[in-house]
């Protein structure tokens, strides 16, 4: 297994190129970058290309028609709209940048300190965040203006401080997350001091979210500035889009174009900034949906599936479940990642069948295919699944629903995440009994209580009214087993049912499954990676490797005489249970006094 796992990632992700280049080819990112580039260039060179002084008034040019001396006409004071628009661009961008600079400086610094050290800064940060969220920022800016007067720069700086919690929270959360990562612990045990750890690991993790926020915060700053100036609170000596909008709006009856130009400039800038942020997020977080052709690409099995080593020894009766030549694939980019290619499986009535394999062997995918519940994007591409004489592939969801829960049931791996945290155990047990099996509420409750008692839950009434978070892992798994066997299924599919449990609990859960099987006469398909579990509970076993079934037979036969090289390799890898020889140079006297400490 020393091949790097690049195969999986290269199948799903696009090749990594520079973020900038990827942004340019991103449909929204490219356009918004070009628009922004033009706006920035205009802003920077505005003072040199503006044909007139933007504050210069001229009586003769009041509401002048466009196209004359004033390119876009004159406003109510006879100022050149074009020049004002150009200069306003510079001020708007500068204002937005100032907001971003102040907000990120304050927010990132505080977030880093609070996230890494906690304590006082953490408390102050949380408090300040709550404070800023309890007042609309415009109210604060209006109040601030009473003190500082109409200063654009101060207003923008205060707004920056006010929205710095946006940065603070993002940085704080990512620092907290990084602090929990083992590689930070490892750095500490490597002897790195706090400063080095922040520099090497923490800043690296904070970088992306901080960059992502940039364009949004600039847009917010520009929008706020425009709003503030629109209210007439801005500095009258600085031409801004907000002022021009205000001017235009109150003279709307005279000329609609007065509003049009600043509105266009403002809208274009903020939309471009926001789109850039979205595109950047797509690219940095890899959520970009690559343009796919409308039609799903063609799928084909590109390799021969080797024959399975079959130990035989099955009786000739009609199998309960027969999976033949199953192929399961996930669409990835322009092709498919085929996770199961030679799925073969025969489960007879009342038998316990182990499906064993390592991660990526496709064992769980095979089980999900039988249930008709493959994760999003997964599809059965070929083969057949016959359950009790009925072909399951190609059944509609409604048809599958009639089988699921009543005839085929499922016990998951992770007990906690498989119970809905918002509903009581009782609700989750009775809901399917009422809705799918058609019992009355009262019957359903009685059945559920009996089941909870049956699976060994000490106080069924109490468990019935509990929420999942009030149960232990072992109890939760019992609840899930109770739910699965509620309607006496013919086939129980258990996906690593004991992997998440402690060894002692695992033994009890296996006992429970064994007892239930004897009682109900159901077949169990148990997906596992543990040969001990197979030896304990399975009549027959099938071994899967990289999506292909390689060996199948009675448990005793396969364990006695594994024939496929892979099966043999697996058996060899099992810890033999040979103890270590005592440490050289230590006399046995050194071991005296040990033994059970009572």
């Amino acid at each position, binding site marked *: 297994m020393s091949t790097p796992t690049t195969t999986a990632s290269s199948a799903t992700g696009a090749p990594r190129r520079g973020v900038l280049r990827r942004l340019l080819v991103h449909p929204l990112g490219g356009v918004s970058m070009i628009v922004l580039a033009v706006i920035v260039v205009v802003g920077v060179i505005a003072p040199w290309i503006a044909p007139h002084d933007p504050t210069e008034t001229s009586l003769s040019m009041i509401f002048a028609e466009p196209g004359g001396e004033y390119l876009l006409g004159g406003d109510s004071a006879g100022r050149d709209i074009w020049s004002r628009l150009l200069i306003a661009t510079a001020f708007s961008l500068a204002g937005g940048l100032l907001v971003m600079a102040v907000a990120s400086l304050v927010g990132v610094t505080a977030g880093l300190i609070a996230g890494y050290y906690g304590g006082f800064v953490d408390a102050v940060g949380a408090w300040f965040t709550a404070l800023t969220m309890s007042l609309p920022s415009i109210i604060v800016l209006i109040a601030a203006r009473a003190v500082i007067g109409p200063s654009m720069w101060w207003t923008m700086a205060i707004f920056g401080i006010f929205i710095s919690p946006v940065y603070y929270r993002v940085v704080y959360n990512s620092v907290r997350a990084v602090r929990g990562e083992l590689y930070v612990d490892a750095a500490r045990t490597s002897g790195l001091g706090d400063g080095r750890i922040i520099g090497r690991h923490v800043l*690296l993790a904070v970088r992306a979210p901080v960059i992502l926020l940039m364009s949004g915060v600039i847009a917010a700053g520009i929008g706020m500035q425009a709003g503030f100036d629109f209210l007439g609170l801005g500095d009258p000596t600085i031409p801004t889009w907000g002022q021009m909008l205000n001017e235009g709006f109150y003279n709307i009856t005279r000329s609609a174009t007065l509003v049009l130009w600043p509105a266009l400039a403002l809208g274009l800038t903020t939309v471009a900034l926001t789109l850039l942020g979205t595109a950047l997020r797509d690219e940095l977080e890899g959520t970009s949906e690559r343009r796919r052709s409308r039609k799903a690409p063609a799928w084909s099995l590109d390799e021969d599936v080797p024959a399975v080593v079959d130990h035989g020894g099955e009786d000739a009766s009609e199998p309960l479940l027969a999976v033949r030549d199953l192929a399961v694939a996930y669409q990835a980019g322009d092709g498919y990642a085929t996770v199961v290619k030679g799925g073969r499986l025969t489960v007879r009535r009342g038998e316990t069948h182990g499906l064993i394999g*390592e991660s990526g062997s496709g064992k769980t995918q095979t089980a999900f295919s039988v249930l008709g519940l493959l994760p999003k994007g997964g599809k059965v591409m070929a083969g057949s699944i016959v359950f009790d004489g009925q072909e399951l592939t190609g059944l509609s969801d409604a048809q599958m629903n009639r089988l699921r829960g009543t005839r085929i049931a499922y016990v998951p791996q992770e007990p906690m995440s498989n119970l809905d945290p918002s509903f009581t155990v009782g609700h989750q047990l009775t809901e399917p009994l009422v809705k799918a099996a058609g019992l009355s509420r009262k019957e359903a409750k009685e059945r559920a209580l009996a089941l909870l008692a049956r699976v060994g839950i000490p106080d069924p009434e109490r468990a019935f009214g509990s929420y999942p978070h009030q149960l232990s892992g072992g109890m939760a798994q019992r609840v899930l087993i109770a739910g699965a066997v509620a309607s006496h299924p013919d086939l129980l599919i258990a996906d690593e049912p004991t992997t998440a449990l402690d060894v002692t609990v695992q*033994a009890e859960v296996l006992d429970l499954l064994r007892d239930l099987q004897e009682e109900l006469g159901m077949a169990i398909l148990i997906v596992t990676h543990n040969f001990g579990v197979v*030896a304990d509970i399975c009549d027959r076993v099938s071994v899967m490797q990289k999506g292909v079934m390689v060996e199948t037979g009675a448990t005793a036969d396969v364990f006695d005489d594994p024939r496929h090289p892979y099966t043999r390799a697996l058996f060899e890898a099992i*810890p033999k249970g040979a103890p270590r020889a005592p440490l050289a140079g230590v006399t046995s006297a*050194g071991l005296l006094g040990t033994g*059970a400490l009572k």
Partner: protein
Amino acid sequence: MTDSLLTVDGLQVEYPGRGFRAQPFRAVKGVSFDIRPGETVGLVGESGSGKTTIGRAILGLAPVSAGTVTFNGEDISHPTKQRRRELTRDIQVVYQDPYSSLNPSLTIGDSLTEPMIVRKTPKREAQARVRELLDMVRLPSDAADRMPREFSGGQRQRVAIARALALDPTLIICDEPVSALDLSTQARVLELFLEIQERTGVAYLFISHDLAVVREMSHRVAVLLHGELVEWGDGDTVTSQPEHPYTQRLLLASPVPDPVAQEQRRADRLRLKQLHADQDLQAGAA
């Protein structure tokens, strides 16, 4: 015991309780054991047994509220920040999760040179050492320039082992180092651990929930239950003829990969369970 490399004596770890006037949570309740140079001591227990916390306490990552940890004759339960950093030369760690233990944005080489930065090892020397380490854990030397995502779980775990070895420590805390790995990978990584021990004479504190793995790796074994040490002694004895009822239960609960032997073990387990239940009943009646 003067020949011990590390001695843990009456170790107690307490985490402050959450909320106002909450009881502190005691994760480790007075645990004692020792590790000799070049020895592997296995620490077995189920979830909540405190086995990981003990490892973290030795590394100085968990608060020691009572008891001592003595390393080479020096009490290291509450060292100064400076001393703690120096100690990292001698005590290293390999974690369970090979995915979270390497920074995804640093190359393997960067991760491996990390311990050498602090020691101000010259760049050329550090690079040579990285090659040497990669060779020691059987990874190709070009691995240094690659990113963690290009490697499988088993390979990442090899990198983590290499990083732990970088400063030639005398003790490595192995916290469930193979639990996240597939069976065949697990066997190879375990082999690597043994091989390195033979070559370098490093001692291991091998923390695991898997009795079979611990048995194969450890000279001596300690069994933990709810933060307390219930059994401690020679590895073979503890893992094949345990005396404490809990260790007995633990041993019989882990299924053996042999249908016939497992049937026997299951019968033994049920008999033991019945026996314990009867004893409890008698104790209750008395």
